[in-house]
């Protein structure tokens, strides 16, 4: 039970070994410290993992968690988190997912569902207000994700009548066959990174289905609704969330990245692709895009819908466009749309999959591994995707990811991964702060968990992309801020509206130029805020999240406390990873990005990682080993 609104007051742990279920102890003090979502999941892993667990063992946990604002109809705030021990990295991983599963989990009366153990036979799990039911999934095993969800709808109509409404989460063949970067799919949304789909597969869980009619209480309905109205208006008026994302989606970044030299090309050996226009957001809008759509209660509606084989399906995001486009030297947009759909249907993360294929193409070119894959020759990629998902032929090896393959065949310098996870589509030698983020990110080569500094380094704001100045402090600030936003249940895209619109829409104005100039000189100030967030004991209209917690949840909040919660989340996740062997040594990038100049004439065109790392650890209050000590954890209230 809880005194706070927004929460359902219950986390449920189920054990597949014996089919038992019990309430997981979680107090209001925990809610104040960790809010929910990924932070709650990280704390649960901190309390349960010793560092000896194998991702495919029954001891691994799958934690599906929501935030207190999930389902309160705050704009763009219906997200949920899936966390586990990653088969790709051997460390914690999490995926923040849109769609409606989080909403229906709460309607079933749960803030989080924790799954441990292994089922002997394939099952799907129905979650409702009465608890959980295990159903055999023999008929579903082997089906693709779209087929699975259609079959489940039919089955549910037979079991519970035709009027039920459900949130669904399932895996495809890739998860069943333990592809290390298998995703879970909910509707058309993916919990993509880190291979949680394979953890589902290892536990013989094909799908989760949730339903219920419990009320999600709002603390002060009138104030909350008024706040939602103002917030929605602000999102609609902002140049990014009100115009660019609804009209062009994330794909619109391809052209800007190209101009900045940030578009990963030919396995990150370059930052520009001469045919980029053919696989850009503009081309997607002009040639392929039918319409846009969005998640529950989202005014941004960034999703593209395209047509593949006469069927309307979700279109590719920037990451898929960039990594299956420029990074493979492929300029065929129709193929990217097709592969994007195939990846969702097979249930695989497009980033790690594309990164692994790019590595294999270069390994083949360099004579390290004779696999037949070549840059620019992409007619057979559909078959390769299927072979990976079913672990056939070279697909069986590609299913292991680029780190394991480079350990086997050589070519580590161009295995573009960090901690075993392949990097996103942003080439960091032209956004060195993003490079730091990739390296120190708890999850591995992830742009978001790494603080997403590229949004300040040319994609949004335009601070000096090559200077290491202030990047460590900004990295920590952005990581903690974004962590806090997403663990409440908000979409990170809402955070773009935190930047005053004129800084984005008028980048050449004297004020914007001044702001862009001054930020790298303000590392000390950002560092002070990082270390002493309590200084920011106020709320600001530009930052709607603290008001949301106040009005919808009834939790006293200010910006400083909000940042501290993000910091706590980041540290507890790091502390779990430390048990699995993470240290400063693990925070690295492939030599291609740190030692090889992107432009031989420009000595700054590489990532000066070690210099930024030292400052980053100091700012975080970590030791030179890159880890939070006991005193740091104690100061953050992590016990």
């Amino acid at each position, binding site marked *: 039970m809880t005194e706070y609104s927004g929460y359902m007051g219950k986390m449920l742990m189920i054990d597949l070994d014996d089919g038992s279920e019990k309430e997981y102890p979680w107090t209001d003090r925990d809610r104040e410290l960790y809010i929910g979502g990924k932070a709650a999941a990280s704390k649960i892993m901190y309390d349960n993992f010793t560092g000896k667990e194998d991702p495919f063992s029954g001891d691994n946990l799958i934690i599906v968690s929501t935030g207190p604002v999930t389902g309160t109809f705050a704009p763009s705030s219906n997200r949920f988190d899936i966390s586990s021990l990653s088969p790709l990295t051997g460390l914690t991983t999490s995926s923040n997912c849109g769609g409606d599963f989080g909403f229906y989990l709460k309607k079933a009366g749960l803030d989080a569902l924790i799954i441990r153990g292994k089922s002997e036979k394939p099952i799907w799990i129905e979650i409702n207000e009465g608890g959980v039911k295990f159903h055999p999934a023999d008929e579903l095993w082997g089906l693709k994700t779209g087929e699975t969800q259609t079959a489940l709808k039919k089955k549910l109509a037979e079991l519970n009548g035709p009027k039920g409404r459900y949130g669904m989460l399932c895996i495809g063949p890739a998860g069943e066959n333990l592809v290390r970067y298998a995703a879970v799919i909910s509707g058309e949304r993916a919990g993509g990174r880190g291979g949680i789909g394979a953890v589902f597969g290892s536990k013989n869980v094909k799908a989760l289905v949730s339903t219920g009619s419990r009320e999600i209480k709002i603390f002060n309905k009138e104030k909350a609704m008024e706040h939602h109205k103002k917030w929605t208006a602000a999102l609609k008026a902002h140049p990014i969330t009100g115009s660019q994302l609804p009209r*062009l989606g994330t794909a619109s*970044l391809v052209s800007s990245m190209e101009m900045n030299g940030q578009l990963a090309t030919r396995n990150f050996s370059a930052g520009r692709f001469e045919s980029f226009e053919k696989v850009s957001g503009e081309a997607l809008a002009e040639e392929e895009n039918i319409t846009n759509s969005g998640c529950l209660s989202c005014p941004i509606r960034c999703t593209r819908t395209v047509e593949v084989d006469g069927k309307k399906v979700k279109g590719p995001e920037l990451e898929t466009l960039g990594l299956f486009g420029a990074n493979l030297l492929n300029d065929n947009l129709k193929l990217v749309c097709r592969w994007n759909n195939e990846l969702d249907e097979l249930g695989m993360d497009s980033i790690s999959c594309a990164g692994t294929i790019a590595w294999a193409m270069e390994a083949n070119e360099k004579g390290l591994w004779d696999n037949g894959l070549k840059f620019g020759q992409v007619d057979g990629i559909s078959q390769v995707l299927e072979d990976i998902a079913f672990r056939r032929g070279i697909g069986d090896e590609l299913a292991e990811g680029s780190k394991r393959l480079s350990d086997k065949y050589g070519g580590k310098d161009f295995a573009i991964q960090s901690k075993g996870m392949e990097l996103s589509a942003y080439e960091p030698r032209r956004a060195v702060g993003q490079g730091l983020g990739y390296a120190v990110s708890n999850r591995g080569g992830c742009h978001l968990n790494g603080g997403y500094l590229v949004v300040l380094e040319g994609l949004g704001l335009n601070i000096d992309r090559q200077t290491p100045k202030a990047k460590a402090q900004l990295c920590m600030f952005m990581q903690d801020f974004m962590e806090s936003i997403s663990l409440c249940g908000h979409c990170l895209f809402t955070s773009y509206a935190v930047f005053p619109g004129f800084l984005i829409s008028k*980048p050449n104005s004297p004020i914007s130029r001044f702001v862009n100039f001054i930020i790298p000189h303000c590392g000390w100030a950002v560092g002070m805020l990082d270390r002493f967030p309590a200084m920011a004991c106020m709320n600001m209209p530009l930052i709607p999240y603290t008001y949301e917690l106040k009005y919808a949840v009834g939790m006293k909040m200010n910006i400083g406390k909000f940042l501290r919660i993000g910091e706590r989340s980041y540290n507890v996740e790091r502390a779990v990873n430390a048990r699995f062997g993470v240290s400063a040594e693990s925070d690295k990038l492939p030599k291609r990005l740190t030692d090889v100049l992107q432009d031989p004439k420009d000595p700054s065109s590489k990532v000066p990682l070690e210099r930024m790392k030292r400052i980053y650890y100091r700012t975080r209050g970590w030791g030179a080993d890159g880890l939070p000590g006991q005193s740091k954890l104690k100061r953050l209230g992590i016990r």
Partner: protein
Amino acid sequence: MRVKVKLFGLLRIDSGIKEVELEASTVRELYPLLLAEMRRRDPECSLDEKDLRACVVAVNERRAKPGTKLSPGDVVCLLPPVAGG
């Protein structure tokens, strides 16, 4: 100087112009010429010079300023600011 001007993002979608050739010696000189071309093609075009000046400009794929001088055959790209991914 005859240069090729390429438009991106919502500027391209809203103006319907993908690329156009214009005569100018600096980036700054391009703005009114481009706007005139947009209005010539679509008299109802709602874009104005402020929208063009707000764009990030690249000449031959290198970031440029309004005062950047142009050479014959240069490719000038105009990108409205974007974020998010």
